[in-house]
């Protein structure tokens, strides 16, 4: 019965932990280093199966356009770097922002649409897991966020809403109508919906253990 987690069978620990709410899992970090990291923080595929989609990460934008991703259950946050299309003066000027889970890539993504150019930056959270050794504790802007690609030109698009259907990005145009952008084909298509004025967020929130600070952070 010698396992990494004492008398809990190693093969079942992940499932056991899936029944434990995040606040009770945090003290578990102090129980045993190897048990916690071996079982709970091996990487995103595990965390995603354990906590399903949407996963309790929320994306916030402050009045100055700084974009931040946080996990309230873990009380962690991380600032997303400004768009390279923003000039020095308006570092964080964001025209629109979207955040969601991309099931095709098993990854979380943030899209920023530049306020003065018709382009969008797509950021991926997945690299957090890969780059966790290089984190600089004091510099939240020196970021693990990796820009994956720029989409555009997106003429007449107001803001992104969410990833859906694995590789489609749902966005609102200037008239409040939904349009869908396919990442693979790079094509925009209008969706047959009524104008959805005032939608600023799309999705639901659940508590989770997805660390926005990377898996080796405690």
């Amino acid at each position, binding site marked *: *019965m010698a396992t990494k987690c004492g008398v*809990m069978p190693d093969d079942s620990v992940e499932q056991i932990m899936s029944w434990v709410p995040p606040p009770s899992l945090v003290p578990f970090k102090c*129980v045993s280093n190897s048990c916690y990291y071996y079982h709970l923080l091996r990487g995103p595929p595990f965390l995603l199966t354990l906590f399903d989609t949407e996963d309790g990460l929320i994306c916030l934008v402050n009045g100055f356009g700084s974009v931040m991703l946080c996990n309230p259950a873990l009380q962690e946050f991380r600032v997303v770097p400004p768009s390279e299309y923003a000039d020095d003066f308006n570092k964080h000027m964001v025209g629109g922002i979207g955040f969601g889970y991309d099931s095709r890539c098993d990854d979380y993504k943030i899209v920023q649409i530049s306020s003065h150019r018709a382009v969008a930056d797509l950021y991926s959270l997945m690299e957090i897991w890969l780059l966790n050794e290089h984190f600089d504790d004091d510099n939240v802007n020196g970021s693990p966020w990796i820009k994956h690609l720029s989409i555009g030109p997106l003429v007449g698009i107001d803001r992104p809403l969410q990833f859906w259907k694995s590789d489609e990005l749902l966005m609102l145009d200037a008239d409040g109508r939904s349009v869908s952008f396919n990442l693979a084909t790079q094509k925009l298509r209008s969706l047959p919906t009524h104008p959805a004025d005032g939608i600023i967020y799309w999705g639901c929130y659940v508590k989770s253990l997805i660390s926005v600070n990377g898996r080796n952070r*405690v």
Partner: protein
Amino acid sequence: MSSSSTTTTTTRLLMLKASDGVTFEVEEAVATKLGAINNMVEEEGSEDLICLPNVNGKFLGMVLEWCKKHANNNTNSDKGNDEVNKWWDKEFVMDLDQNTLYHLLMAADYLSGTELVDLLTEKVASMIRGKKVEEIRETFKIKSDFLPGQEEEIRKKNSWAFE
């Protein structure tokens, strides 16, 4: 003639042999609640004796007891069945000691008894929820493997969770 689709009326008996040689005669409809047995029955067809070298008689017996109860409860198409199953499950796990829980979980996992694994892992989780670090270590006999100062650092960074 009844055309009932449940297999209980025509079910055959399977012989399950545990690692210590203990055998159990079980209705097919009961044993096939376990995914592993179900696969063997479907793949091997006519074989009535199934050897299970990774589970000993004591725990195989308990797993089968659970299967039997659930198979019986499910044959009555009564709306109260879910409640009955829940109540019975609660009783089933209530007084399990640590050692039994461990081996039962291993057995249920090996036999692919998905619902039983759910029940048992939830039970273990209930022993973790809301517990202090020291209590969890003691309950599960886990030794701390932190370097000096590491644990204090984690506590400091996550102080909100320890209040």
